[in-house]
């Protein structure tokens, strides 16, 4: 094995790797959404082109899935706040 990379190069490679990983994660999300929304929106035999409704179903599907995930997070947070407020009322002197 040749010499090790110098510190600057190691740093650069680290940053590069991180960027690639971010991109891979992004790509993975797009894959997941595509599969999920395909199953929901494309029910018949695939045609020579998408119908307008299939196309809008696909993009609505992505948007609503993201809305759903925001909704879930917000709701859990609200419940946690409510719980905290309640327990603070009980236990503080």
């Amino acid at each position: 094995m040749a010499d090790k990379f110098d510190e600057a190069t190691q740093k650069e490679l680290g940053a590069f790797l991180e960027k690639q990983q971010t991109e891979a994660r992004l790509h993975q999300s797009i894959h997941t959404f595509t599969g999920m929304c395909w199953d929901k929106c494309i029910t018949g035999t695939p045609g020579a082109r998408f119908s307008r409704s299939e196309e809008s179903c696909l993009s609505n599907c992505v948007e609503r899935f993201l809305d759903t995930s925001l909704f879930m997070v917000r709701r859990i947070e609200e419940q946690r706040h409510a719980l905290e407020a309640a327990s603070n009322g009980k236990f503080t002197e």
Partner: protein
Amino acid sequence: MTDFLKSVPTDSMASRKEAVMNAIKQEVALSAAQTLMNSVNERCFKACVQKPGTSLGSSEQTCLARCQDRYLEAFNIVRKTYMSRLSKERMEDQANVI
């Protein structure tokens, strides 16, 4: 995954760096392509091959070809929608900070 380190010429640090970066890029691209191919196969087999016979019939092949095109199109629609949503949310976050 570690094989590429051995095949790298050891002349200069810069060229070794390039080689590592290219190997990583290739790895990422390959894995993305594999994921996509697996999901296309699965979906299109389900959509187009209802009753598997002794060979793929020509109507099944037509369906598979269309399905593959549509799946890639769907992937692009999803990507566009997701990216524009991401950039919209990023802008809103910035507006909230300021």
